[in-house]
């Protein structure tokens, strides 16, 4: 698949302050790419550099094979962007801004915009100053999507949306992918990213911590294991479980034990099979918990 977004050791600093460091990204055509990280991790910096709002300190960024800075106007003509802090002139209505943006983009029909506004419940008639944060965000989503861009870049798009609208928005995003368009979705709401993203990048302290298909991130991660036995195990036998590679957070009582397991399922199953097992549970952790492991001290996770 052709890369829509590609960065190579992309670095952006603000004076002595860190922005992003050596970010290598590749977002393929037709995928929903989740970009995860807490506030200040570098998500918005990455997006604003991709759109040519700021110049990289080093490294390169390209969108559709075009240079992010030199060809910024061409890139933006093919991109729909929802900034993280979506703000419009207070006196303007969504309708006025929509017509203005449509003229700048040469969009003659606003039928699709009205369709989007209807599905999201966006009020385009009232001035922005009279809209709540959530309602402003709906207008922002309509303005980002109304021209059916090849690439949608959404920075924290669900902030302020109520649950019903969020569901409708996620359905819209899935439809965008079904149409073969690409979505770059920055968020710190893990549940929605897990639901709709094909791949996830995790950014921590300005550096990419991981880029994986969503399913692999989940499958490659640890499991919470609980095993109950028919009879009480001796301490010596319990300690054999604790000594297995990949076992952490070990706990036990007279005839059951629990631990966190990083891989090495086979040894655990074989050791357990020496006893009469009455219950066994390999619980997949929620994405939130997986995500937090990327934010733990790397040495604590046994990483180099």
């Amino acid at each position, binding site marked *: 698949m052709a890369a829509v977004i590609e960065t190579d050791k992309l670095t952006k600093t603000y004076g002595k302050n860190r922005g992003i460091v050596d970010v290598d990204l590749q977002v393929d055509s037709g995928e929903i790419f989740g970009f995860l990280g807490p506030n200040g991790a570098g998500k918005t910096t990455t997006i604003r550099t991709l759109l040519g709002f700021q110049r990289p300190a080093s490294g390169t960024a390209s969108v559709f094979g075009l240079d992010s800075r030199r060809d910024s106007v061409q890139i933006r003509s093919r991109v729909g962007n929802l900034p993280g802090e979506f703000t419009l002139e207070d006196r303007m209505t969504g309708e006025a801004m929509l017509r203005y943006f449509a003229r*700048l983009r040469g969009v003659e*029909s606003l039928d699709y915009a009205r369709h989007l506004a209807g599905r999201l419940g966006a009020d385009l008639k009232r001035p922005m100053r009279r809209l709540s944060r959530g309602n402003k965000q709906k207008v922002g989503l309509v303005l980002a999507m109304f021209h059916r861009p090849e690439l949608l870049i959404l920075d924290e798009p669900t902030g302020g949306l109520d649950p*019903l609208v969020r569901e409708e928005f996620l359905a819209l995003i899935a439809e965008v992918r079904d149409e073969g368009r690409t979505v770059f979705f920055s968020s710190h709401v893990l549940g929605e990213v897990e639901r709709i993203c094909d791949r996830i990048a995790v950014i921590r302290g300005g550096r990419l911590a991981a880029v994986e298909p969503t399913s692999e991130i989940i499958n490659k991660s640890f499991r919470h294991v609980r095993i109950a036995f028919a009879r009480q195990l001796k301490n010596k036998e319990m300690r054999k479980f604790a000594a297995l590679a990949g076992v952490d957070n070990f706990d036990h009582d007279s005839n059951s034990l629990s631990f966190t397991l990083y891989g090495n399922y086979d040894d655990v199953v074989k050791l357990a099979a020496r006893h009469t097992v009455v219950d066994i549970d390999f619980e997949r952790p929620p994405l939130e918990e997986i995500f937090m492991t990327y934010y733990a001290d790397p040495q604590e996770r046994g990483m180099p």
Partner: protein
Amino acid sequence: MSTANREAPGTGAAPLGRQVPAAAKLVHFIGHQLQLQVRAVIGWSLALGLYTAAMVAIFPSFSDLENLTAAIPEGMREGLGITDIGTIEGFLSAEAFSIVTPLALAFFPMLSLSAVIAGAEERGTIDVLFSNPLPRWLVVVGSFLAVAISLLAVVVIIGLLMWSTALLVGVDLDFSDAAAAVLNLWPLCMFFGSLALLCSAIFHRRLFGIAIPGVLLLGMYLLDVIGNLSEDLEDARVLSVFHHYGSAIEEGIDGSGFAGITCFAVLFVILAVAAFHRRDIYT
């Protein structure tokens, strides 16, 4: 929301829209900026238009204007460039077009143009604007042109209010003199406005976009006034834009002064384009 038809209008996933030429984008951008400036145009026009109209209206009530001119100390007359306030042209030059109107009206383009880049960065609206395929130069040039048009509208309204008041109260104010007086404000005000645009493009702080041209405005005015009084500073007056501004209501528009000041305003815009092109956009 959920009751809306889920079937999207149009066919397929093809992007909507077409390439828009830069000239057309510029026209749309200027149109939008003008729309945003309507209230400011009305406010500034009424405030300064009613002030100049009031000056015209009170002119007939002064019965002994020759003695009034003589009563003004000579130094003050020279400093402020007052020649003869016994005529409506001289009176308006002294009361409206030498100090109050140019000093006040210069703040209209200064406030408007400092709001375009640095102001939009501070308000957080600039990322939404630049999410559209707008080149940076277009935003700078389009903002300058929009304010230039708005300012022209303001001075025209001021001139019409002043001239129509003269007709009403029976003061003999020639239309061409009134037109020259107000049109002469345009390059002077745009000079400081485009300087505000340049500062806004460089510093991304609106405060600098107002403070720097504001201080220069007052400094140049004082230089011109003091240069009129002091032989030591007389040669330095050429550095003040007010020296080239003159008194158009009495002497007509000085073409070279008008063109020279306008050229500086355009130069500031070119520098603003270059400065804004080089720097990051902040939010």
